[in-house]
Structures are given as structure tokens and as C-alpha cells.
């Protein structure tokens, strides 16, 4: 996706590249529409969509800036955010490295097998010796290259006096290789190059699957993240404005905050009035009115006219930074979680090593001589090496996460699935989680013309009501009418001219209704009541959770009357007006009672709770911080994926345990043969591939788990 970014600038200096994340790309039509629509515009040379990452790379003349391009995308009907840097590229590198190692191991394995099969089927004498030498020639570089991920991880573990899955793997591979080289030199009957390389191949397949799964969901989540509030327009003393990154803002600077822009630092309003949307920070759903002198916090979104804000606190001192600090501390407990593969390795590795040592000692005692004893000990090590064990966990988790992605849930990594399987109590935030994020209007009173006018007006505003209106009108396929002279006045509403008639979308007279807007076309008026409806399937999701034995509660930062209404409707125990600290305390209390809480929330104020909970899920509309803190993100308007996540996670753990039994059981069958010194490289190869295939086959059953 960043090819364009790399090779353009030096050759043709007047062209540059800008990348946007466009979460709305859903089908081939979107790709065509964006690429062609942008390419037609003056000054844009080409546009390339990356569908998986939901990104667009635009190659354009330098005279076009981010705002013009963003506007062009919006005119094509897509919400877009410029991508500043690519923090995800580093992890991409890991997947690529594993894939390369896998390809090399696969190449080595196939060629060595070709030679081995000839040896097994009876090649003897010089032919066999030559084939062993050829195998060595292929195997040594292959193992040196493809084994690096395991060797380095094993070294790291040993350096900290611990052991993980990679320690027995590395020892097994290195010993088998060394023994085979020795056998080749002395011209003996068996060489184990094929086993060593095959072991690496299957294990790398597991690792690559694991990395691909993380990469795939990261791309999905990265597409949802915006560059919200990471920079600000600063007015310099001479009156000019410049873009300054959030970490270079200083107290006393004057920020110019455009409509729809998020604040990058805490400050005080100097000039301008209107309202800000604090939903991400506090969970409050109603916009907060502001006037000169009002304090505003980083992360809040300016809804109306441009504001001049004097910076009072930056970076480390802002309200957001306080939440980030809480999150850091809260996340500590989760990083101590030990994944099931490592727990298995802790039991398995000592058992494997002592068995091999016992075999060596036993055969020495019978007087077999060190050479034969060593060959047998290594055969035991190869046979018991956790080849299928390395696949057991990732194969199941990849299939499960693939099934969940199709149902709109992105799970970040395998450890998240393991923790999701253990939860026994669920805590829900209200705004944006149990309810839909934006208020939804009741449009039944409007005819088609009025709807088109309403859309034409509303798409000019960032007010939550306008956005709710735009969403529901776009969904019903209404095309906006062109409106001229649109003006937005904070606290009042939008006015404009439609075919010469004065139209307005404004606050209703009399202020009686709490949540309503009024549409006026000439002399005719309609009142549009707004409500923040529950997600349609909230009831079903909670019932499903209850069926899994999980109790649900509400833990919200919103006012108690708003929370109470939802709690009564759903029949849940609720706690309202909880600060981020309160939420953390509540989670700690539950943990101390021995519960494994699941937190589902979207706001910035939920961030620490999401990081502290045993497992956490955030909706795709959540703040960046929350999505990064959560283990999984669900997309769309349905809440059922939350219940599905737990259900599939539990099913996955069942399959993982079955895989362990199958993998260990299969190898255990071959262990007596190995102990008796009867294992040939052929038996090792068959045992290894059969157990791997069985484990992968068993994992594939999870593909239907999310139905």
C-alpha cells in the first residue's frame, strides 16, 4: 500500500502522496468509484485503494492539500481521515519475515523429502551417501535461515532463566541436525535432516498463521482509527496559521479549532461560542454549550463555528493524558496473562527433556555405547517434539477469528480469545454501546422532498443530530437536494436557500422537547423527535450471554436518569455517573471477588476500564484509545457479536484442548518405538505430518462456530 509513497517524490518533485483511511470501502463498486472519481479531478494523478487496509493512496500535485483531498473523498460519499504515519508497519515486518522463513523451510523440506524417499525405498551405497550429503547441503542453510525466529526467542527465554515452547524446539532441531551431520560424515544408514526441516516447516506454519491473524485484524482496526486531535492549527502572533503536532503545543499558544475538529490540548475558549461534543470523554450524549471563558478538554469535538482556544495544558497534563496514565497502569495486569501454549510448554518441555535424558541414561546402562544411546535420545526428542502442539493453538484461533470477522467482530490476538473464553460477568457502557452512538430521528412525518432538503442541510453540519439525520437518510437511499448559502449558527441551527425558498433545520421553538429538531421549508414546519435507541438486538445479545452463564450489568458515566431508563428497559443492574476511576474500582472489586469481568465500552472514559478488565470489546464507533485498549472490536449496529465472541472463544478453547490431546496422544504412540530405538526418520516424518494434519482438520470445525 505504501509503494506509491516510496517511489514518487524523488523522481517528479511536483507530485506528492497522501494516504487516507476510508472505513466505508465495502465492495468493488467503492473501489471503482474512488479510484475513478479521484483520478478525474484536476491535479490528481492517480489513486489506489487498498481494500484490506481500507486505505487510499493518492498521488497528486503539491498544490492540493489534505483538506481539499478529504473534501473530494467526502463528495464521492466516503468519510476519510488522513493517515499521518504508519505505526503498524513494524508488525507487518514480522509477518513477512515469518512468511519468508516458511517459504524457505517449505523449499528445503520438499527437496530433502525427495532425496529421503529414495533412501527409504532402498537406495544404498554411494547413492545414499551422496543423497545424505546433498540433504545436508540443503538443510544447513535452510535451518540457519528458517530457524532464526525460534533460536532467537529460545535464547531470549534462556537469558531470563525461563523456558518456553521454543527451547525444546531449538534443542531438538539443533541436536537432530548435528547428529545427522555426524552420521553423514561417517556414512551411516540414517540422517534426520528431513525431520528437522519438517519440524521447522510445521511450526513456522503455526507462527505465520498467528501473525497473519493479528495482521488482518490490525488492518481492520487501523482503518477505523482516525488522526483525531493529533495536531492543531496554531495562530502565530503575526496572524498566520500553521499546523503543529500535538506534542509540540505549548501553554499560551492560540489554537484555531475548525468545525468538526477535535481539540489537541486542554484550553480555555478565548473567542467564539457554540457547543462541543464531549461524548468520548464523559459518556454524556448531549452537546455541551460553550462561550468565551469556558474550559475545554483535549478530545472534545467542536460542533459549530471556528473557536479560538488558548492552550492551558499540553501533552502530559491534559485530561486525556490522565486517562492514558490510568490505562497504562490498568493494562499491566493483562500483560502478565500466560497464554495456554506457554502454560502447556511449561509442563511439556521438562517432560520431553527428562524422557530423552532417561532414554540416554537407560541405554548407556544397558551398555549400548554413547553413540547409539545419543541416537536414541535424539529420536525420542524428535518424536516428542511439539510439532502439532505448535499448530494446535494458532490453527484453532485463526479459524475462529476468521469465523468471527465474517460476523463483524475483529479479535486482536489469540490471547484475547483465551481470555474471552474465561469471562463470567459482563459490564456494559450505555452511550454508544448498548445504545447507538448517534441520536436517531423519527422521520415518519416527512415526505421525499422534505427528506432530500433535510439531508442537503444536515450534511453541512457536525452536530450529533445532523449526523444522525444524515446516517438514517443515506441508509434509506435519499439523494440530497443542493442548498445554497448554508449558514450554521451555534445553538440555533442551519439555514439556507433551496430553489429560492428559505429552508432551515433548527432548534424547535418553545424548547419543550428535550431531543428534537425542526425542519422548516418556506412556511411549512415539521418537528423531528430524536432518540438514542437501544441497539436492535441488545435484548437478544444479553439473553445469549445469560444462556452462557454470564451476568450483565451497566456501568456508565452518563447521568442516572438516562441510565435508569435503559436499565429498566433491559432489566439490568446499573451504576450511573461513574468516573474512569470509579469504573476501575468496580472492576478491581469484581476481580477480588474472583470474577473474570468482560468490559464493553466505547468512550475515552472507558479506556482504563477496557484495559483493566479481564477481556474487553469496543464498538467500531469507539474512540481510538478505546479501540486500542480493547481486545476485540465489533463493527456495525448489532450487539450480538459480543455474545458470539464469548461463545466462539469458549468453543475455541474446547478445540484447542482436543488438539493438545490429539497432538500429544499421537506422538505418545510413537514414544515407545523411539525408546526401543526402532524409530527411523521415516516413522518420525509420518508421525509428525499425520498429527499436524489431524490437528489442522480438527481446528477447521470451528469455521461454523459463529453461526
Amino acid at each position, binding site marked *: 500500500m505504501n509503494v506509491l509513497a516510496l517511489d514518487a517524490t524523488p523522481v517528479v518533485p511536483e507530485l506528492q502522496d497522501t494516504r487516507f483511511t476510508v472505513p466505508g470501502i465495502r465492495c468493488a463498486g467503492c473501489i471503482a468509484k474512488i479510484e475513478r472519481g479521484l483520478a478525474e479531478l484536476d491535479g490528481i494523478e492517480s489513486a489506489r*485503494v*487498498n481494500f484490506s*487496509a481500507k486505505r487510499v493512496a493518492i498521488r497528486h500535485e503539491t498544490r492540493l492539500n489534505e483538506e481539499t483531498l478529504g473534501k473530494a473523498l467526502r463528495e464521492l460519499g466516503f468519510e476519510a481521515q488522513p493517515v499521518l504515519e504508519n505505526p503498524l508497519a513494524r508488525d507487518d515486518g514480522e509477518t513477512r519475515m515469518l512468511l519468508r522463513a516458511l517459504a524457505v523451510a517449505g523449499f528445503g523440506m520438499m527437496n530433502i523429502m525427495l532425496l529421503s524417499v529414495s533412501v527409504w525405498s532402498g537406495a544404498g551405497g554411494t547413492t545414499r551417501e551422496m543423497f545424505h550429503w546433498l540433504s545436508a547441503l540443503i538443510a544447513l542453510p535452510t535451518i540457519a535461515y528458517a530457524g532464526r525466529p525460534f533460536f532467537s526467542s529460545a535464547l531470549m527465554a534462556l537469558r531470563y532463566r525461563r523456558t518456553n515452547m521454543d527451547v525444546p524446539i531449538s534443542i531438538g532441531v539443533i541436536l537432530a541436525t548435528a547428529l545427522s551431520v555426524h552420521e553423514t560424515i561417517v556414512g551411516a544408514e540414517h540422517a534426520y535432516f528431513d525431520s528437522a526441516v519438517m519440524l521447522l516447516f510445521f511450526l513456522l506454519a503455526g507462527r505465520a498463521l498467528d501473525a497473519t491473524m493479528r495482521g488482518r485484524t490490525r488492518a481492520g482496526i487501523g482503518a477505523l482509527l482516525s488522526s483525531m486531535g493529533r495536531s492543531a492549527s496554531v495562530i502565530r502572533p503575526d496572524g498566520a496559521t500553521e499546523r503543529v503536532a500535538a506534542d509540540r503545543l505549548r501553554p499560551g499558544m492560540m489554537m484555531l479549532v475548525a468545525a468538526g475538529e477535535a481539540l489537541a490540548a486542554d484550553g480555555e475558549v478565548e473567542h467564539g461560542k457554540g457547543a462541543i461534543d464531549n461524548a468520548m470523554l464523559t459518556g454524556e450524549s448531549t452537546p455541551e454549550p460553550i462561550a468565551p471563558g469556558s474550559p475545554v478538554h483535549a478530545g472534545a469535538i467542536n460542533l459549530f463555528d471556528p473557536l479560538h482556544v488558548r492552550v492551558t495544558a499540553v501533552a502530559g497534563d491534559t485530561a486525556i493524558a490522565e486517562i492514558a496514565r490510568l490505562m497504562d497502569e490498568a493494562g499491566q495486569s493483562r500483560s502478565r496473562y500466560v497464554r495456554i501454549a506457554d502454560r502447556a510448554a511449561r509442563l511439556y518441555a521438562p517432560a520431553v527433556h527428562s524422557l530423552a535424558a532417561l532414554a540416554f541414561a537407560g541405554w548407556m546402562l544397558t551398555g549400548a555405547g554413547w553413540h547409539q544411546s545419543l541416537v536414541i535420545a535424539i529420536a525420542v526428542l524428535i518424536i516428542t517434539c511439539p510439532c502439532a502442539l505448535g499448530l494446535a493453538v494458532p490453527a484453532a484461533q485463526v479459524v475462529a477469528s476468521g469465523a468471527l470477522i465474517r460476523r463483524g467482530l475483529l479479535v486482536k490476538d489469540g490471547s484475547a480469545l483465551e481470555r474471552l473464553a474465561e469471562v463470567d460477568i459482563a459490564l456494559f457502557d450505555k452511550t454508544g454501546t448498548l445504545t447507538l452512538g448517534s441520536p436517531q430521528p423519527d422521520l415518519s412525518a416527512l415526505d421525499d422532498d422534505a427528506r432530500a432538503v433535510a439531508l442537503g442541510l444536515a450534511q453541512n453540519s457536525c452536530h450529533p443530530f445532523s449526523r444522525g439525520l444524515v446516517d438514517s437518510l443515506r441508509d434509506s437511499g435519499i439523494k440530497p437536494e443542493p442548498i445554497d448559502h448554508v449558514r450554521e449558527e451555534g445553538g440555533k441551527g442551519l439555514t439556507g436557500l433551496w430553489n429560492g425558498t428559505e429552508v432551515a433545520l433548527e432548534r424547535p421553538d418553545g424548547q419543550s422537547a428535550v431531543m428534537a429538531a425542526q425542519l422548516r421549508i418556506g412556511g411549512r414546519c415539521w418537528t423531528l423527535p430524536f432518540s438514542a435507541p437501544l441497539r436492535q438486538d441488545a435484548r437478544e445479545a444479553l439473553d445469549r450471554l445469560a444462556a452462557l452463564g454470564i451476568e450483565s450489568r451497566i456501568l456508565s458515566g452518563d447521568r442516572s436518569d438516562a441510565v435508569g431508563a435503559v436499565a429498566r428497559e433491559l432489566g439490568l443492574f446499573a451504576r450511573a455517573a461513574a468516573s474512569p476511576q470509579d469504573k476501575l474500582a468496580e472492576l478491581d472489586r469484581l476481580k477480588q471477588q474472583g470474577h473474570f469481568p468482560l468490559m464493553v465500552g466505547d468512550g475515552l472514559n472507558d479506556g482504563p476500564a477496557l484495559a483493566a478488565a479481564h477481556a474487553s470489546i469496543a464498538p467500531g464507533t469507539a474512540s481510538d484509545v478505546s479501540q486500542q485498549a480493547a481486545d476485540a472490536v465489533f463493527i456495525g449496529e448489532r450487539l450480538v457479536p459480543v455474545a458470539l465472541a464469548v461463545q466462539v472463544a469458549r468453543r475455541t478453547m474446547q478445540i484447542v484442548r482436543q488438539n493438545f490431546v490429539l497432538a500429544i496422544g499421537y506422538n505418545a504412540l510413537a514414544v515407545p518405538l523411539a525408546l526401543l530405538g526402532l524409530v527411523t526418520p521415516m516413522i518420525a516424518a509420518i508421525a509428525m505430518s499425520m498429527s499436524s494434519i489431524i490437528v489442522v482438520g480438527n481446528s477447521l470445525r470451528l469455521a461454523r462456530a459463529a453461526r
Partner: protein
Amino acid sequence: MSLLTFLIPIALGMGAAGLAAFFWAMRNDQFEDLDGAANRILIDEEDEV
């Protein structure tokens, strides 16, 4: 035996060629956007005229 001196290098060479092709594809971002490639087949080229 003399056949082997031809066949084995040929077999190795073909495997190595496959490996090289894979490395080339990785380096040229052929695996960057698999879902996109699957979707692009549906785009009607004639629209562009």
C-alpha cells in the same frame, strides 16, 4: 547414476525458481491487498471509456 547428475540440479533449480518467485512477489507487495484483488475482478473495465 549419470541421469541423477542432471535430474537433481533440475529439481533443485525448479524449486529455487519457485522460491525466488515467491520472494519477488512478497517484495512487490503482491500479498498486500488480497481482498482487494478478489474484488477488483468485479469492476467493469468498460466504465472507464
